[in-house]
């Protein structure tokens, strides 16, 4: 790699043209998937892209792995331009996507992995050794000779993860790698990713991982730095600790109250001193998440609840999480939470 940056984007944008049906003569609609994205990822970094579904994470990854051309701006991977020199980038990278069904069902797990290793020029001996090692790490050695069509979703995803690592890439792109995995399997995958990066830091060889996720825990647990992305724009980029520190001065409360209607709840967001407010209705209760400018603002919230005859069932003050940072930046929570956990 030509400099210390594994990935660099400058004013990167991508617009999709959505065509109507063949019979309609309307001009194609434009969907802005990415707009003015500026990122710098150092070699050896485990970098996270955090955002809800449709935020632009996968589009960004597709551009970086040379499968999609940007419509504006610049993107470099390993010091090479994704448009001008994709052939120089491809030997350095690999990618694993959540829920992918790549490979051939008729082939065994070992055969599928061997096949993809061949595309990267690995000799038979090396590829077989790595496959054995990695299948052992993900606990699939006993399934090496099982046809991939006979694997469960979770095992198939583990096979895909091994496929991504078997070529020992300089830069690995993990696009929602734990999507669809159960809690235990997702935890195993995270542990494995962390170990892979850590092992290669001694001596520091510059292995880089770019991970996209909409699971807060994943980003918090794994990433050295996180960029929060929504509607194609990067809203913040820092270490998880620094991002959370932004909210350290605010008071964050989790409150469970007796059921309230939406009309009554809508007034809370406009109370003086309430920075952000989200709510969720459950059977027999409503959950409120509040970011307040100071602790004493809570009294006005309680007064308003009393005014609506709502009873407080549970009240907790807690440390800020990445979810709070996201809510603070975007003004709403992630639509899906904690799927992997």
């Amino acid at each position, binding site marked *: 790699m030509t400099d210390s940056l594994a990935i660099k984007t400058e004013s990167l944008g991508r617009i*999709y*043209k*959505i065509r109507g049906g063949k019979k309609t003569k309307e001009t194609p609609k434009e*969907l802005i998937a990415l707009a003015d994205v500026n990122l710098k990822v150092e070699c050896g970094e485990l970098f996270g892209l955090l955002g809800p579904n449709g935020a632009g994470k996968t589009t960004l990854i*597709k551009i970086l*792995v*040379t*499968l*999609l*051309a940007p419509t504006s701006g610049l993107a470099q991977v390993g010091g090479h331009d994704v448009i001008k020199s994709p*052939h120089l980038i*491809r*030997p350095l*990278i*690999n*990618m694993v*996507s959540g829920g*992918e*069904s*790549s*490979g*051939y069902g*008729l*082939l065994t797990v070992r*055969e599928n992995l*061997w*096949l*993809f290793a*061949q*595309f*990267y*020029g*690995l*000799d038979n001996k*090396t*590829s077989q050794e790595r496959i054995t090692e990695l299948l052992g790490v993900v606990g699939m050695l006993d399934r090496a000779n099982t*046809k991939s069509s006979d694997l469960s979703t979770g095992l198939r995803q583990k096979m895909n993860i091994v496929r991504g690592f078997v070529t*020992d890439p300089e830069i690995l792109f993990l696009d929602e790698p734990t999507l669809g995995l159960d809690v235990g399997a997702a935890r195993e995958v995270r542990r494995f990713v962390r170990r892979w990066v850590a092992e290669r830091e001694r001596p520091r060889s510059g292995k880089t991982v770019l991970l996209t996720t909409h699971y807060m825990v994943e980003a918090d647990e794994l990433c050295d730095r996180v960029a929060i992305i929504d509607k194609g724009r990067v809203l913040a980029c820092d270490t998880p600790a620094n991002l959370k520190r932004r909210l350290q001065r605010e008071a964050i409360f989790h409150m469970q109250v007796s059921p309230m209607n939406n009309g009554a709840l809508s007034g809370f967001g406009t109370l003086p001193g309430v920075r952000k407010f989200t709510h969720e209705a459950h059977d027999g209760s409503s959950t409120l998440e509040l970011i307040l400018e100071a602790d004493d603002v809570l009294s006005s919230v309680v007064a308003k609840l009393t005014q609506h005859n709502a009873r407080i069932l549970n009240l907790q003050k807690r440390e800020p999480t990445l979810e709070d940072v996201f809510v603070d930046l975007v003004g709403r929570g992630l639509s899906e939470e904690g799927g992997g956990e």
Partner: protein
Amino acid sequence: MAARKSSTEMFVRTVIARAYPRVIGQHRELSWVFFDIFLPLMATCAYVFVYKAIRAPEEYIGFVIMGGAMTAFWLNVLWSMSSQLYWEKETGNLGLYVMAPNSLMAILLGMALGGMIATCMRALVIVVLGSWWFGVTYAIGDFIQLFATFMLTMTALYGLGMLFASLFLMFGREAWHMSNLLQEPVYLASGFYFPIRSFNFWIAASASIIPLTLGLDAMRQLLFASGAKFGFLSVRVEIAVLVVLCVVFIGAAKYSLDYMERLAIREGRITDTRK
């Protein structure tokens, strides 16, 4: 990265690796025995009985058996080459192929090689069974010319398949319809079940753009004692045209594949058929 090899070796490894599922799949999925041998044999038998009923020249039985065997290659090119990249896109393999440090040409060559090897087995079974049932006798005069004709036909045919595959890279489900559309007319135009000399010269010449047309005609001339009597052009001329078709189709496939890959990346079609 000591384990990584030169680009030539990587190319060869990719070709062999992509051929592997086609060859091994034959042993693991035996439904092909019914679809690729029994069904073509039935169609072949139907023509044999028609020719017997109308007391056509005896050579026609052998012509039909050879045509039936070559049908397997055409079906393989249409369904397992031309529209294959569409299926690879659907399963998520296409993105991984494009992203790998290799050319898509190596992937297509692997598909072609694997398809050719697997289909040779099927074609051979049709020839052996058909010849045995109907008592066809062969008189091979020049084995080298016969082998050269077969190999050139295969190279040109799979070159055409690679060209189609590159064009179909941009297609969604239309690829399936396009394959359907191309299937039957070629049965007629290539003279699978009759000598193309039955057509007038210009129709036969136009049909010669499909490598199977001249390949089959030349092979019939070389396989049967009175084959030359039914031939469209001399074997030497047909071999020369097949060489030209090989160069044109493989060259066009390479150019088209490079262009279509760039276009698909620009339009976002490698991983998404909708946008």
